[in-house]
Protein backbone atom coordinates (compact mmCIF):
# COMPACT_ATOMS: atom_id res chain seq x y z
CA UNK A 1 0.00 0.00 0.00
CA UNK A 2 1.61 3.19 -1.20
CA UNK A 3 0.47 6.09 0.98
CA UNK A 4 0.23 8.86 -1.61
CA UNK A 5 -1.77 6.67 -3.96
CA UNK A 6 -4.02 5.38 -1.20
CA UNK A 7 -4.70 8.91 0.00
CA UNK A 8 -5.52 9.90 -3.55
CA UNK A 9 -7.89 7.01 -4.24
CA UNK A 10 -9.70 7.37 -0.93
CA UNK A 11 -10.30 11.06 -1.58
CA UNK A 12 -11.25 10.30 -5.18
CA UNK A 13 -13.79 7.87 -3.78
CA UNK A 14 -15.46 10.60 -1.76
CA UNK A 15 -15.44 12.80 -4.84
CA UNK A 16 -17.14 10.10 -6.87
CA UNK A 17 -19.62 9.59 -4.07
CA UNK A 18 -20.54 13.27 -4.22
CA UNK A 19 -21.48 12.81 -7.86
CA UNK A 20 -24.64 10.96 -6.88
CA UNK A 21 -26.08 13.89 -4.92
CA UNK A 22 -24.76 16.09 -7.73
CA UNK A 23 -26.84 14.05 -10.13
CA UNK A 24 -29.82 14.35 -7.79
CA UNK A 25 -29.57 18.12 -7.96
CA UNK A 26 -28.97 18.04 -11.71
CA UNK A 27 -32.00 15.84 -12.30
CA UNK A 28 -34.06 17.42 -9.53
CA UNK A 29 -33.64 20.90 -10.94
CA UNK A 30 -34.71 19.75 -14.40
CA UNK A 31 -38.09 18.34 -13.42
CA UNK A 32 -41.29 20.08 -12.57
CA UNK A 33 -41.83 21.28 -9.04
CA UNK A 34 -44.25 18.51 -8.25
CA UNK A 35 -41.68 15.77 -8.93
CA UNK A 36 -38.56 17.21 -7.34
CA UNK A 37 -38.29 15.15 -4.17
CA UNK A 38 -39.20 11.96 -5.99
CA UNK A 39 -36.62 12.55 -8.69
CA UNK A 40 -33.94 13.32 -6.13
CA UNK A 41 -34.74 10.27 -4.03
CA UNK A 42 -34.68 8.16 -7.18
CA UNK A 43 -31.11 9.30 -7.75
CA UNK A 44 -29.84 8.91 -4.23
CA UNK A 45 -31.48 5.78 -2.91
CA UNK A 46 -28.77 3.90 -4.80
CA UNK A 47 -26.37 5.13 -2.13
CA UNK A 48 -28.25 2.81 0.19
CA UNK A 49 -28.95 -0.14 -2.07
CA UNK A 50 -25.77 0.14 -4.11
CA UNK A 51 -23.42 0.21 -1.14
CA UNK A 52 -25.12 -2.52 0.83
CA UNK A 53 -25.35 -4.81 -2.20
CA UNK A 54 -21.74 -4.07 -3.08
CA UNK A 55 -20.63 -4.99 0.40
CA UNK A 56 -22.78 -8.11 0.55
CA UNK A 57 -21.98 -9.63 -2.85
CA UNK A 58 -21.47 -6.99 -5.51
CA UNK A 59 -17.73 -6.57 -5.20
CA UNK A 60 -17.25 -10.28 -5.15
CA UNK A 61 -19.41 -10.84 -8.22
CA UNK A 62 -17.66 -8.04 -10.08
CA UNK A 63 -14.05 -8.57 -9.14
CA UNK A 64 -13.85 -12.03 -7.58
CA UNK A 65 -12.14 -14.91 -9.34
CA UNK A 66 -13.22 -15.01 -12.93
CA UNK A 67 -15.91 -17.34 -14.28
CA UNK A 68 -15.95 -17.61 -18.08
CA UNK A 69 -14.82 -14.01 -18.44
CA UNK A 70 -18.33 -12.92 -17.57
CA UNK A 71 -18.78 -12.78 -13.85
CA UNK A 72 -16.74 -12.99 -10.65
CA UNK A 73 -17.16 -15.33 -7.73
CA UNK A 74 -18.65 -15.33 -4.26
CA UNK A 75 -15.39 -15.60 -2.41
CA UNK A 76 -15.60 -12.06 -0.99
CA UNK A 77 -19.20 -12.22 0.21
CA UNK A 78 -19.63 -9.58 2.93
CA UNK A 79 -16.16 -8.30 2.05
CA UNK A 80 -14.70 -11.20 3.95
CA UNK A 81 -11.08 -11.65 3.06
CA UNK A 82 -10.75 -8.36 1.21
CA UNK A 83 -7.41 -7.15 2.43
CA UNK A 84 -6.96 -3.70 3.92
CA UNK A 85 -3.32 -3.54 2.95
CA UNK A 86 -2.57 -6.11 0.25
CA UNK A 87 -3.22 -5.10 -3.35
CA UNK A 88 -5.97 -6.46 -5.61
CA UNK A 89 -3.58 -7.13 -8.48
CA UNK A 90 0.12 -7.61 -8.18
CA UNK A 91 1.95 -4.36 -8.46
CA UNK A 92 -1.07 -2.21 -7.74
CA UNK A 93 -0.35 0.83 -5.61
CA UNK A 94 -3.51 0.49 -3.57
CA UNK A 95 -4.94 -2.23 -1.40
CA UNK A 96 -7.79 -4.50 -2.36
CA UNK A 97 -10.20 -2.79 0.05
CA UNK A 98 -9.25 0.63 -1.27
CA UNK A 99 -9.99 -0.60 -4.77
CA UNK A 100 -13.27 -2.04 -3.53
CA UNK A 101 -14.21 1.34 -2.00
CA UNK A 102 -13.40 3.21 -5.18
CA UNK A 103 -15.39 0.79 -7.31
CA UNK A 104 -18.28 0.89 -4.84
CA UNK A 105 -18.90 4.51 -5.72
CA UNK A 106 -19.20 3.56 -9.39
CA UNK A 107 -21.77 0.93 -8.49
CA UNK A 108 -23.74 3.66 -6.72
CA UNK A 109 -23.81 6.28 -9.44
CA UNK A 110 -24.31 4.08 -12.51
CA UNK A 111 -27.83 2.85 -11.83
CA UNK A 112 -28.76 6.34 -10.64
CA UNK A 113 -28.11 7.61 -14.17
CA UNK A 114 -30.92 5.47 -15.51
CA UNK A 115 -33.55 7.10 -13.33
CA UNK A 116 -33.40 10.27 -15.41
CA UNK A 117 -35.26 8.79 -18.33
CA UNK A 118 -38.29 7.67 -16.34
CA UNK A 119 -38.76 10.76 -14.19
CA UNK A 120 -42.33 11.66 -13.40
CA UNK A 121 -44.12 8.39 -14.00
CA UNK A 122 -42.52 5.30 -12.50
CA UNK A 123 -43.55 3.85 -9.16
CA UNK A 124 -40.83 4.29 -6.61
CA UNK A 125 -41.15 0.72 -5.41
CA UNK A 126 -40.79 -0.66 -8.92
CA UNK A 127 -37.85 1.59 -9.55
CA UNK A 128 -36.04 0.23 -6.50
CA UNK A 129 -36.67 -3.35 -7.55
CA UNK A 130 -35.65 -2.68 -11.12
CA UNK A 131 -32.45 -0.92 -10.13
CA UNK A 132 -31.43 -3.64 -7.71
CA UNK A 133 -32.01 -6.32 -10.33
CA UNK A 134 -30.27 -4.30 -12.99
CA UNK A 135 -27.17 -3.97 -10.84
CA UNK A 136 -26.92 -7.72 -10.59
CA UNK A 137 -27.97 -8.63 -14.12
CA UNK A 138 -26.22 -5.90 -16.06
CA UNK A 139 -23.81 -3.88 -13.99
CA UNK A 140 -21.76 -6.51 -12.17
CA UNK A 141 -21.21 -8.56 -15.32
CA UNK A 142 -20.27 -5.61 -17.48
CA UNK A 143 -17.86 -4.36 -14.82
CA UNK A 144 -16.28 -7.75 -14.62
CA UNK A 145 -15.99 -8.02 -18.39
CA UNK A 146 -14.16 -4.73 -18.85
CA UNK A 147 -12.21 -4.35 -15.61
CA UNK A 148 -12.17 -7.66 -13.76
CA UNK A 149 -9.15 -9.94 -13.90
CA UNK A 150 -10.05 -12.34 -16.67
CA UNK A 151 -12.97 -10.30 -17.97
CA UNK A 152 -13.43 -11.22 -21.61
CA UNK A 153 -13.68 -7.70 -23.02
CA UNK A 154 -10.52 -6.84 -21.16
CA UNK A 155 -8.80 -9.88 -22.58
CA UNK A 156 -10.09 -8.98 -26.02
CA UNK A 157 -8.20 -5.70 -25.65
CA UNK A 158 -11.14 -3.31 -25.37
CA UNK A 159 -10.11 -0.08 -23.68
CA UNK A 160 -12.31 1.42 -21.01
CA UNK A 161 -10.40 3.81 -18.85
CA UNK A 162 -13.06 4.98 -16.47
CA UNK A 163 -16.52 4.05 -17.58
CA UNK A 164 -17.43 3.10 -21.11
CA UNK A 165 -19.40 0.06 -20.01
CA UNK A 166 -21.05 2.02 -17.30
CA UNK A 167 -22.30 4.83 -19.51
CA UNK A 168 -23.33 2.68 -22.44
CA UNK A 169 -25.28 0.18 -20.38
CA UNK A 170 -26.99 2.76 -18.21
CA UNK A 171 -27.79 5.01 -21.15
CA UNK A 172 -29.19 2.26 -23.33
CA UNK A 173 -31.13 0.76 -20.45
CA UNK A 174 -32.58 4.19 -19.77
CA UNK A 175 -33.80 4.34 -23.35
CA UNK A 176 -35.34 0.88 -23.30
CA UNK A 177 -36.97 1.50 -19.94
CA UNK A 178 -38.53 4.80 -20.96
CA UNK A 179 -39.95 3.21 -24.11
CA UNK A 180 -41.35 0.29 -22.13
CA UNK A 181 -42.92 2.68 -19.65
CA UNK A 182 -44.43 4.96 -22.24
CA UNK A 183 -44.62 8.73 -22.28
CA UNK A 184 -45.81 10.98 -19.54
CA UNK A 185 -49.52 11.49 -20.13
CA UNK A 186 -49.18 15.18 -20.91
CA UNK A 187 -45.92 14.84 -22.79
CA UNK A 188 -47.22 16.77 -25.79
CA UNK A 189 -49.66 19.09 -24.11
CA UNK A 190 -47.62 20.76 -21.45
CA UNK A 191 -44.45 22.58 -21.15
CA UNK A 192 -41.73 20.70 -19.33
CA UNK A 193 -39.92 23.73 -18.21
CA UNK A 194 -36.97 23.43 -15.94
CA UNK A 195 -38.10 24.44 -12.49
CA UNK A 196 -34.87 25.61 -10.87
CA UNK A 197 -31.88 26.49 -13.00
CA UNK A 198 -29.39 27.35 -10.26
CA UNK A 199 -30.05 23.90 -8.83
CA UNK A 200 -29.27 22.28 -12.19
CA UNK A 201 -26.08 24.32 -12.44
CA UNK A 202 -24.98 23.39 -8.93
CA UNK A 203 -25.66 19.75 -9.74
CA UNK A 204 -23.59 19.85 -12.88
CA UNK A 205 -20.69 21.49 -11.08
CA UNK A 206 -20.73 18.91 -8.34
CA UNK A 207 -20.63 16.33 -11.12
CA UNK A 208 -17.66 18.11 -12.65
CA UNK A 209 -15.95 18.25 -9.27
CA UNK A 210 -16.48 14.57 -8.61
CA UNK A 211 -15.65 13.51 -12.13
CA UNK A 212 -11.99 14.30 -11.59
CA UNK A 213 -12.01 11.63 -8.92
CA UNK A 214 -13.83 9.37 -11.33
CA UNK A 215 -11.43 9.71 -14.24
CA UNK A 216 -8.13 10.56 -12.63
CA UNK A 217 -8.74 8.09 -9.82
CA UNK A 218 -9.23 5.36 -12.39
CA UNK A 219 -5.46 5.35 -12.78
CA UNK A 220 -5.71 3.58 -9.41
CA UNK A 221 -2.73 5.39 -7.99
CA UNK A 222 -0.53 8.42 -8.30
CA UNK A 223 1.31 8.10 -11.57
CA UNK A 224 1.63 9.83 -14.90
CA UNK A 225 -1.64 8.36 -16.08
CA UNK A 226 -3.54 9.92 -13.20
CA UNK A 227 -2.14 13.32 -14.07
CA UNK A 228 -2.84 12.75 -17.73
CA UNK A 229 -6.42 11.66 -17.14
CA UNK A 230 -6.91 14.77 -15.04
CA UNK A 231 -5.88 17.18 -17.75
CA UNK A 232 -7.79 15.40 -20.53
CA UNK A 233 -10.90 15.44 -18.36
CA UNK A 234 -10.59 19.16 -17.76
CA UNK A 235 -9.94 19.96 -21.40
CA UNK A 236 -12.80 17.87 -22.71
CA UNK A 237 -15.31 19.26 -20.22
CA UNK A 238 -14.27 22.81 -21.01
CA UNK A 239 -14.38 22.27 -24.76
CA UNK A 240 -17.77 20.60 -24.60
CA UNK A 241 -19.14 23.44 -22.51
CA UNK A 242 -18.05 25.92 -25.16
CA UNK A 243 -19.31 23.70 -27.96
CA UNK A 244 -22.75 23.42 -26.41
CA UNK A 245 -22.94 27.16 -25.88
CA UNK A 246 -21.97 27.59 -29.51
CA UNK A 247 -24.70 25.21 -30.64
CA UNK A 248 -27.16 27.20 -28.57
CA UNK A 249 -25.99 30.47 -30.08
CA UNK A 250 -26.16 29.14 -33.62
CA UNK A 251 -29.48 27.35 -33.30
CA UNK A 252 -31.51 29.40 -30.87
CA UNK A 253 -29.58 32.61 -30.85
CA UNK A 254 -28.48 32.73 -27.23
CA UNK A 255 -26.24 30.75 -24.93
CA UNK A 256 -27.97 29.34 -21.84
CA UNK A 257 -26.84 28.32 -18.40
CA UNK A 258 -28.66 25.04 -18.86
CA UNK A 259 -26.77 24.48 -22.06
CA UNK A 260 -23.43 25.25 -20.47
CA UNK A 261 -24.23 22.87 -17.62
CA UNK A 262 -25.35 20.11 -19.94
CA UNK A 263 -22.33 20.64 -22.14
CA UNK A 264 -19.94 20.16 -19.25
CA UNK A 265 -21.59 16.87 -18.38
CA UNK A 266 -21.54 15.75 -22.02
CA UNK A 267 -17.84 16.52 -22.28
CA UNK A 268 -17.13 14.57 -19.13
CA UNK A 269 -19.01 11.56 -20.43
CA UNK A 270 -17.25 11.71 -23.77
CA UNK A 271 -13.75 11.69 -22.32
CA UNK A 272 -14.41 9.04 -19.70
CA UNK A 273 -13.62 5.93 -21.77
CA UNK A 274 -10.38 7.36 -23.11
CA UNK A 275 -9.19 9.75 -20.41
CA UNK A 276 -5.98 7.88 -19.73
CA UNK A 277 -5.35 6.74 -23.31
CA UNK A 278 -5.83 9.67 -25.67
CA UNK A 279 -3.50 12.66 -26.09
CA UNK A 280 -4.48 16.07 -24.77
CA UNK A 281 -5.34 17.48 -28.18
CA UNK A 282 -7.69 14.55 -28.74
CA UNK A 283 -9.48 15.47 -25.52
CA UNK A 284 -10.16 18.83 -27.11
CA UNK A 285 -11.57 17.12 -30.18
CA UNK A 286 -13.66 14.77 -28.09
CA UNK A 287 -15.09 17.65 -26.09
CA UNK A 288 -15.85 19.68 -29.18
CA UNK A 289 -17.63 16.80 -30.90
CA UNK A 290 -19.52 15.18 -28.04
CA UNK A 291 -21.64 18.24 -27.36
CA UNK A 292 -23.02 18.67 -30.90
CA UNK A 293 -23.77 14.97 -31.13
CA UNK A 294 -25.69 14.94 -27.86
CA UNK A 295 -27.32 18.22 -28.83
CA UNK A 296 -28.52 16.70 -32.05
CA UNK A 297 -29.84 13.58 -30.34
CA UNK A 298 -31.80 15.58 -27.81
CA UNK A 299 -33.12 18.20 -30.18
CA UNK A 300 -33.88 16.19 -33.29
CA UNK A 301 -33.72 12.43 -32.91
CA UNK A 302 -35.69 12.36 -29.68
CA UNK A 303 -38.36 14.60 -31.20
CA UNK A 304 -38.47 12.52 -34.35
CA UNK A 305 -38.95 9.19 -32.60
CA UNK A 306 -41.08 10.63 -29.85
CA UNK A 307 -39.77 8.59 -26.95
CA UNK A 308 -39.96 10.37 -23.64
CA UNK A 309 -36.43 10.25 -22.28
CA UNK A 310 -37.42 12.81 -19.69
CA UNK A 311 -34.03 14.07 -18.56
CA UNK A 312 -32.00 12.81 -21.51
CA UNK A 313 -30.30 9.96 -19.72
CA UNK A 314 -29.90 8.24 -23.06
CA UNK A 315 -29.33 11.40 -25.08
CA UNK A 316 -26.42 12.41 -22.87
CA UNK A 317 -25.05 9.35 -21.14
CA UNK A 318 -25.81 6.70 -23.71
CA UNK A 319 -24.81 8.65 -26.78
CA UNK A 320 -21.95 10.47 -25.10
CA UNK A 321 -20.60 7.20 -23.78
CA UNK A 322 -20.83 5.43 -27.12
CA UNK A 323 -19.16 8.33 -28.87
CA UNK A 324 -16.45 8.40 -26.22
CA UNK A 325 -15.83 4.70 -26.72
CA UNK A 326 -15.51 5.17 -30.46
CA UNK A 327 -13.17 8.11 -29.96
CA UNK A 328 -11.00 5.93 -27.77
CA UNK A 329 -10.76 3.57 -30.71
CA UNK A 330 -9.80 6.52 -32.85
CA UNK A 331 -7.38 8.44 -30.70
CA UNK A 332 -5.86 6.08 -28.16
CA UNK A 333 -2.10 6.10 -28.34
CA UNK A 334 0.53 3.91 -26.77
CA UNK A 335 2.78 6.94 -26.54
CA UNK A 336 0.35 8.31 -23.97
CA UNK A 337 -0.22 5.11 -22.08
CA UNK A 338 1.79 2.02 -22.79
CA UNK A 339 -0.91 -0.11 -21.19
CA UNK A 340 -3.28 0.90 -24.00
CA UNK A 341 -3.12 0.35 -27.75
CA UNK A 342 -2.98 2.58 -30.78
CA UNK A 343 -6.26 3.80 -32.20
CA UNK A 344 -7.30 4.15 -35.83
CA UNK A 345 -5.75 7.57 -36.03
CA UNK A 346 -2.40 6.12 -35.06
CA UNK A 347 -2.76 3.18 -37.40
CA UNK A 348 -4.39 0.77 -34.98
CA UNK A 349 -7.29 -0.64 -37.00
CA UNK A 350 -7.72 -3.52 -34.62
CA UNK A 351 -8.48 -1.45 -31.56
CA UNK A 352 -11.12 0.48 -33.44
CA UNK A 353 -13.09 -2.60 -34.31
CA UNK A 354 -12.63 -4.07 -30.88
CA UNK A 355 -14.12 -0.91 -29.43
CA UNK A 356 -17.08 -1.14 -31.80
CA UNK A 357 -17.57 -4.77 -30.94
CA UNK A 358 -17.35 -4.06 -27.23
CA UNK A 359 -19.90 -1.29 -27.51
CA UNK A 360 -22.18 -3.59 -29.48
CA UNK A 361 -21.93 -6.28 -26.85
CA UNK A 362 -22.68 -3.77 -24.11
CA UNK A 363 -25.73 -2.50 -25.98
CA UNK A 364 -27.07 -6.00 -26.44
CA UNK A 365 -26.43 -6.82 -22.82
CA UNK A 366 -28.18 -3.64 -21.72
CA UNK A 367 -31.23 -4.25 -23.92
CA UNK A 368 -31.60 -7.86 -22.94
CA UNK A 369 -30.94 -7.10 -19.29
CA UNK A 370 -33.46 -4.31 -19.19
CA UNK A 371 -36.20 -6.45 -20.71
CA UNK A 372 -35.40 -9.18 -18.25
CA UNK A 373 -35.38 -6.90 -15.20
CA UNK A 374 -38.52 -5.15 -16.39
CA UNK A 375 -40.28 -8.47 -16.69
CA UNK A 376 -39.37 -9.52 -13.19
CA UNK A 377 -40.27 -6.12 -11.77
CA UNK A 378 -43.74 -6.44 -13.24
CA UNK A 379 -44.30 -9.50 -11.14
CA UNK A 380 -44.24 -7.21 -8.11
CA UNK A 381 -47.06 -4.99 -9.32
CA UNK A 382 -47.82 -2.13 -11.67
CA UNK A 383 -44.73 -0.27 -12.73
CA UNK A 384 -46.30 2.97 -13.76
CA UNK A 385 -48.26 5.27 -11.46
CA UNK A 386 -51.92 6.08 -12.08
CA UNK A 387 -52.68 9.08 -14.24
CA UNK A 388 -54.10 10.93 -11.26
CA UNK A 389 -50.90 10.40 -9.31
CA UNK A 390 -48.89 11.60 -12.24
CA UNK A 391 -50.97 14.74 -12.35
CA UNK A 392 -50.71 15.65 -8.70
CA UNK A 393 -47.04 14.83 -8.91
CA UNK A 394 -44.97 11.96 -7.64
CA UNK A 395 -43.81 13.92 -4.63
CA UNK A 396 -47.26 13.82 -3.19
CA UNK A 397 -48.40 10.48 -4.52
CA UNK A 398 -45.25 8.42 -4.03
CA UNK A 399 -43.52 10.15 -1.11
CA UNK A 400 -46.25 12.14 0.60
CA UNK A 401 -44.08 15.23 0.87
CA UNK A 402 -43.79 18.37 -1.17
CA UNK A 403 -40.42 19.84 -1.92
CA UNK A 404 -41.10 23.52 -1.29
CA UNK A 405 -44.30 23.88 0.74
CA UNK A 406 -43.63 27.49 1.68
CA UNK A 407 -43.19 28.86 -1.79
CA UNK A 408 -46.04 29.76 -4.09
CA UNK A 409 -45.97 29.24 -7.79
CA UNK A 410 -47.53 27.37 -10.64
CA UNK A 411 -45.83 24.15 -11.46
Amino acid sequence: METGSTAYILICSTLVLLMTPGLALFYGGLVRRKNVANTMLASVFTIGTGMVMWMLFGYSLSFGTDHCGIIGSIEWIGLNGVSLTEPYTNGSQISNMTFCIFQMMFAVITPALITGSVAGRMKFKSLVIFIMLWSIIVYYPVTHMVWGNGGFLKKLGALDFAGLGLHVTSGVSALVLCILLGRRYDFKATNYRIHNIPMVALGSFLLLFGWFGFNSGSALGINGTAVHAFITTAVSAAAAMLAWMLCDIILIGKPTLIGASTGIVAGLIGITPGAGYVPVWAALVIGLTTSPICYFMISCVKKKFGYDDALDAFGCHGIGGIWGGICTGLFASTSVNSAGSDGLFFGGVKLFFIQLAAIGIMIILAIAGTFFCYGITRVFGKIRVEEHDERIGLDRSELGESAYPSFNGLD
Partner: protein
Amino acid sequence: MIVKIEAYIREDKMEDVIDALATIDIHGITCYQVMGCGSQHGVKEYTRGKQEVELHLLPKIKIEVLLSTEKCEQRVIDTIQKAAYTGEKGDGKILSYDVRSAMRIRTHETGPEAIQPSD
Protein backbone atom coordinates in the same frame (compact mmCIF):
# COMPACT_ATOMS: atom_id res chain seq x y z
CA MET B 1 -67.86 55.68 -2.18
CA ILE B 2 -64.94 53.36 -2.52
CA VAL B 3 -63.66 51.65 -5.62
CA LYS B 4 -60.94 49.16 -6.11
CA ILE B 5 -58.74 49.35 -9.17
CA GLU B 6 -57.12 46.16 -10.33
CA ALA B 7 -54.56 46.07 -13.09
CA TYR B 8 -52.72 43.23 -14.78
CA ILE B 9 -49.45 44.64 -16.02
CA ARG B 10 -46.04 43.57 -17.27
CA GLU B 11 -43.46 42.59 -14.71
CA ASP B 12 -40.97 45.17 -15.80
CA LYS B 13 -43.52 47.96 -15.62
CA MET B 14 -44.27 47.53 -11.97
CA GLU B 15 -41.74 50.01 -10.71
CA ASP B 16 -42.84 52.57 -13.26
CA VAL B 17 -46.46 52.21 -12.26
CA ILE B 18 -45.67 52.55 -8.58
CA ASP B 19 -43.57 55.62 -9.25
CA ALA B 20 -46.25 57.13 -11.45
CA LEU B 21 -48.88 56.59 -8.80
CA ALA B 22 -46.65 58.22 -6.25
CA THR B 23 -46.52 61.37 -8.38
CA ILE B 24 -50.33 61.71 -8.13
CA ASP B 25 -50.11 61.01 -4.42
CA ILE B 26 -51.37 57.47 -4.41
CA HIS B 27 -49.30 55.50 -1.95
CA GLY B 28 -51.57 52.66 -0.92
CA ILE B 29 -50.84 49.74 -3.21
CA THR B 30 -50.88 45.98 -3.03
CA CYS B 31 -49.35 43.81 -5.68
CA TYR B 32 -48.32 40.26 -6.43
CA GLN B 33 -47.11 38.10 -9.25
CA VAL B 34 -49.63 36.18 -11.32
CA MET B 35 -49.49 34.15 -14.51
CA GLY B 36 -51.68 35.13 -17.41
CA CYS B 37 -52.53 34.84 -21.05
CA GLY B 38 -54.79 36.69 -23.47
CA SER B 39 -54.22 38.25 -26.86
CA GLN B 40 -50.59 37.49 -26.18
CA HIS B 41 -50.89 33.79 -26.79
CA GLY B 42 -47.80 32.70 -25.00
CA VAL B 43 -44.33 32.19 -26.27
CA LYS B 44 -42.27 29.38 -27.63
CA GLU B 45 -39.08 28.79 -25.79
CA TYR B 46 -36.32 26.29 -26.13
CA THR B 47 -35.04 24.33 -23.27
CA ARG B 48 -31.89 22.25 -23.18
CA GLY B 49 -30.92 22.00 -26.75
CA LYS B 50 -33.64 22.81 -29.20
CA GLN B 51 -36.50 21.19 -27.37
CA GLU B 52 -39.52 23.40 -27.87
CA VAL B 53 -41.72 24.32 -24.95
CA GLU B 54 -44.88 26.27 -25.33
CA LEU B 55 -45.54 28.61 -22.47
CA HIS B 56 -49.16 29.60 -22.34
CA LEU B 57 -48.99 31.46 -19.10
CA LEU B 58 -46.59 34.33 -18.77
CA PRO B 59 -45.64 36.11 -15.59
CA LYS B 60 -47.53 39.33 -14.97
CA ILE B 61 -48.01 41.58 -11.99
CA LYS B 62 -51.40 42.29 -10.53
CA ILE B 63 -51.80 45.60 -8.76
CA GLU B 64 -54.65 46.54 -6.47
CA VAL B 65 -55.37 50.10 -5.46
CA LEU B 66 -58.22 51.24 -3.24
CA LEU B 67 -59.62 54.70 -3.85
CA SER B 68 -62.17 56.81 -2.13
CA THR B 69 -63.42 59.29 -4.73
CA GLU B 70 -64.80 58.72 -8.15
CA LYS B 71 -63.00 61.68 -9.63
CA CYS B 72 -59.76 60.21 -8.60
CA GLU B 73 -60.63 56.90 -10.23
CA GLN B 74 -60.21 58.07 -13.79
CA ARG B 75 -56.98 59.82 -13.00
CA VAL B 76 -55.53 56.71 -11.46
CA ILE B 77 -56.61 54.56 -14.37
CA ASP B 78 -55.03 56.98 -16.80
CA THR B 79 -51.85 57.14 -14.82
CA ILE B 80 -51.52 53.38 -14.68
CA GLN B 81 -52.34 53.10 -18.37
CA LYS B 82 -49.64 55.55 -19.27
CA ALA B 83 -47.01 54.01 -17.06
CA ALA B 84 -47.74 50.44 -18.10
CA TYR B 85 -48.00 51.10 -21.83
CA THR B 86 -45.64 49.63 -24.37
CA GLY B 87 -47.99 49.11 -27.32
CA GLU B 88 -47.11 45.44 -27.67
CA LYS B 89 -49.59 42.66 -27.00
CA GLY B 90 -49.58 41.69 -23.39
CA ASP B 91 -49.73 45.13 -21.83
CA GLY B 92 -52.71 44.06 -19.77
CA LYS B 93 -55.95 45.44 -18.44
CA ILE B 94 -57.18 47.87 -15.83
CA LEU B 95 -60.45 47.19 -14.04
CA SER B 96 -62.48 48.85 -11.35
CA TYR B 97 -64.95 47.41 -8.85
CA ASP B 98 -67.33 48.73 -6.27
CA VAL B 99 -66.40 48.13 -2.69
CA ARG B 100 -69.24 47.71 -0.20
CA SER B 101 -67.37 48.65 2.90
CA ALA B 102 -63.87 49.22 4.10
CA MET B 103 -62.20 49.37 7.47
CA ARG B 104 -58.73 50.30 8.56
CA ILE B 105 -57.61 47.72 11.08
CA ARG B 106 -55.40 50.07 13.00
CA THR B 107 -58.02 52.76 13.64
CA HIS B 108 -61.42 51.12 13.18
CA GLU B 109 -62.19 53.86 10.67
CA THR B 110 -64.70 52.80 8.07
CA GLY B 111 -65.75 54.16 4.71
CA PRO B 112 -63.51 56.44 2.68
CA GLU B 113 -61.47 57.41 5.74
CA ALA B 114 -60.34 53.83 6.03
CA ILE B 115 -58.29 54.02 2.91
CA GLN B 116 -57.10 57.59 2.94
CA PRO B 117 -53.47 57.91 3.84
CA SER B 118 -53.05 58.65 7.52
CA ASP B 119 -50.14 59.47 9.70
